[in-house]
């Protein structure tokens, strides 16, 4: 646990004049969760009213399909970030799982069902490697997963080289984009929601969830309370890998293409969504509802701006600004509140 002090939240409450700011902010907004959900509702309403073709069933289908990988990876990422760690290798794990799937399909003759199981297992193993480095050797996850980000991506090129495997059975690939009969909601959304429910319950309503928050804030204190910090974090990385395996399968089948560069760069989008959802990068704070709203908000904004023919470059700027605003705004609001509060207090004292 030599790195515990490194993970300490930035300014500790006692030393920081504005320590009460988070409490104040919660009072103001209810919580970041509600704020981000409200922002999402507003975004959907505005887009629906002003952007042509936005409020159509087909668009909903496209939108949701595009968000499936993001939403799935964001689930374990939320938990990992809450414990004060981070996993930047997720996109590379997706890529490696995808190429493994392609390679197995190409050359092993195994059934696709079995291959899918193997791919999820591989994801779990990749995650376990991350977990081993982080918890077993006590290395900072940021550095470890930057390393495996390169390593796994490299291996996925090693695995499939310059080929792309594309001849997956049509009924499998079609299943990925099929809608629930009578709606324009893709079928895959159902398992995503179920998984989200599981993660939500674990995080917010189980002893293990409490432990995650505790270790994110102070892993030494968590240890003293009987939490096996290392073991818990290890399994989180394993779960993250396994989910990346699932995403790898989805990605491969949806695009009917297993390639080394699949999902490149997705890690930054996931981290953006998680932070936008109100999870503190220092750990110990945030919730799953906010994160899911963050994922949707990101997706809705991109989709609406695309439909409104806004330049992709402007989209890049919007993503960045949104991320910055999501962390600057709450602080600014709390600052103003605190200042008002102080003024209100000072006057009665003076008079």
């Amino acid at each position, binding site marked *: 646990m030599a790195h515990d*002090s*490194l993970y300490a939240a930035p300014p500790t409450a006692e030393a920081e004049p504005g320590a009460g700011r988070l409490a104040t902010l919660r009072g103001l907004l209810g919580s970041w969760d509600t704020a981000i959900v409200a922002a999402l509702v507003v975004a959907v309403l505005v887009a629906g009213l002003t952007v042509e073709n936005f409020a159509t069933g087909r668009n909903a289908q496209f939108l949701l399909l595009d968000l499936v990988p993001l939403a799935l990876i964001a689930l374990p990422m939320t938990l990992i970030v809450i414990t004060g760690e981070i996993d930047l290798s997720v996109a590379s794990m997706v890529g490696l799982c995808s190429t493994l799937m392609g390679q197995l399909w190409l050359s092993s003759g195994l059934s696709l069902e079995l291959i899918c199981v193997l791919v999820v297992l591989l994801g779990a193993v990749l995650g376990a490697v991350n977990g081993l480095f982080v918890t077993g050797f006590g290395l900072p996850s940021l550095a470890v997963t930057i*390393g495996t980000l390169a390593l796994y991506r490299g291996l996925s090129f090693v695995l499939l080289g310059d080929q792309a495997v594309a001849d997956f059975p049509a009924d499998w690939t079609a299943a990925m984009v099929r809608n629930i009969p009578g709606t324009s909601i893709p079928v895959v959304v159902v398992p995503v929601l179920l998984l989200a429910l599981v993660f939500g319950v674990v995080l917010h309503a189980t002893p293990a969830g409490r432990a995650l928050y505790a270790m994110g804030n102070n892993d030494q204190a968590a240890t003293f309370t009987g939490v096996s910090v290392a073991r818990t974090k290890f399994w989180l990385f394993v779960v993250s890998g396994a989910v990346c395996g699932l995403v790898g399968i989805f990605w491969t089948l949806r695009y009917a293409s297993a390639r080394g560069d699949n999902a490149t760069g997705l890690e930054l989008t996931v981290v953006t969504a998680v932070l936008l959802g109100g999870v503190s990068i220092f750990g110990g704070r945030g919730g799953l509802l906010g994160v899911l709203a963050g994922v949707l908000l990101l997706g809705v904004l991109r989709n609406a701006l695309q439909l409104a023919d806004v330049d992709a470059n402007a989209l*890049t*700027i919007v993503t*960045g600004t949104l*991320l910055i605003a999501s962390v600057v705004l709450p602080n600014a609001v709390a600052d103003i509140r605190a200042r008002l509060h102080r003024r209100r207090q000072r006057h009665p004292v003076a008079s």
Partner: protein
Amino acid sequence: MSLTDAGAPERATANAPTEPDRPRRSLTERLLAVRELSLLLALGLLVLVTTLRNDRFLSGQSIKDLLLGCAILVILAVGQTLVIVTRNVDLSVGSILGLVAFATGTLFLNASGTPWPVALVVGVALGALCGAVNGGLIAVARVPALVITLGTLYAFRGVDYYWASGRQINAADMPPAFLRLGNQTVLGVPVLFLVALVVVAAVGFYLRSYRSGRELYAIGSEPAAARLSGIPVGRRVFAVFVANGALAGLAGVLYAARFGTLDAAAGNGLELQVVAAAVVGGVAIFGGSGSAYGAALGAVLLTTIGSSLAVLRIDPFWQQAVVGALILAAIGLDRLLALRVAARLRGRSAHGA
């Protein structure tokens, strides 16, 4: 015998007469030296192995190429060290570099008579401005640097894209004197590398020997304590981001000089490489320790690996994987060293052992 001091035998070393005029290197410093030494060793080994396979690897041309190839990454890694030491990180350097490089090209395009030193100053200033945006947001709004610079990574790149809108600037658009800067050598050493060397020396010296430099380590080591000791944390962090921005700006100008062909994608994805160089160079990702020399060595090592893999004709598909494995090895080594030192410290104040 001191009643409180059960560890007297070990601690006695502290009391041993020290020669007053020979500065004794502190334990922490010695540790860093070990770290840098091991990097040099790794570098030497790599060069040796590669040369054994292909003796052209040590030819003058090849060394020149190596030095040229690492210069820009070295400058960025040194700037990043300043930031990481304060327990921050700047992910937007790649975007700043791209923006500045394109701006430099555009400057020459629109005002073709501009002498290159002016372009250099403009580029550094633009970089510093970008850094000031980062630093301002972080210091004033007190939010984590990782998030802010992830945001500006997108934002600066977006501005760059928007501005360039798919245009490209070519070598022919820039004055030959400027382009020569990117390739010229002095006594066989590329000018670019000399610039990087000056940056490394200046930053390294500053970090080790100046009060404000040491304060950066203090901030990274324990921000709350830094505030209580009267260190102007906000101002220092701001300054560090401006400095890093300026260095990224410098790197951007040099990039323009060296590559000659510029579009808006220059430096895309460079940030991870820069952070990797610093980490491989022994800069603790969570602040408080590391040196500019180490980071520079890390950058040289990464670049050399790239070159030597190309020379060894290792399957190109393996290259990225090797770099990843190397990062893991480097931080693993750091950890091992730290554990051994910790054990020694424990030995010192362990009682009754």
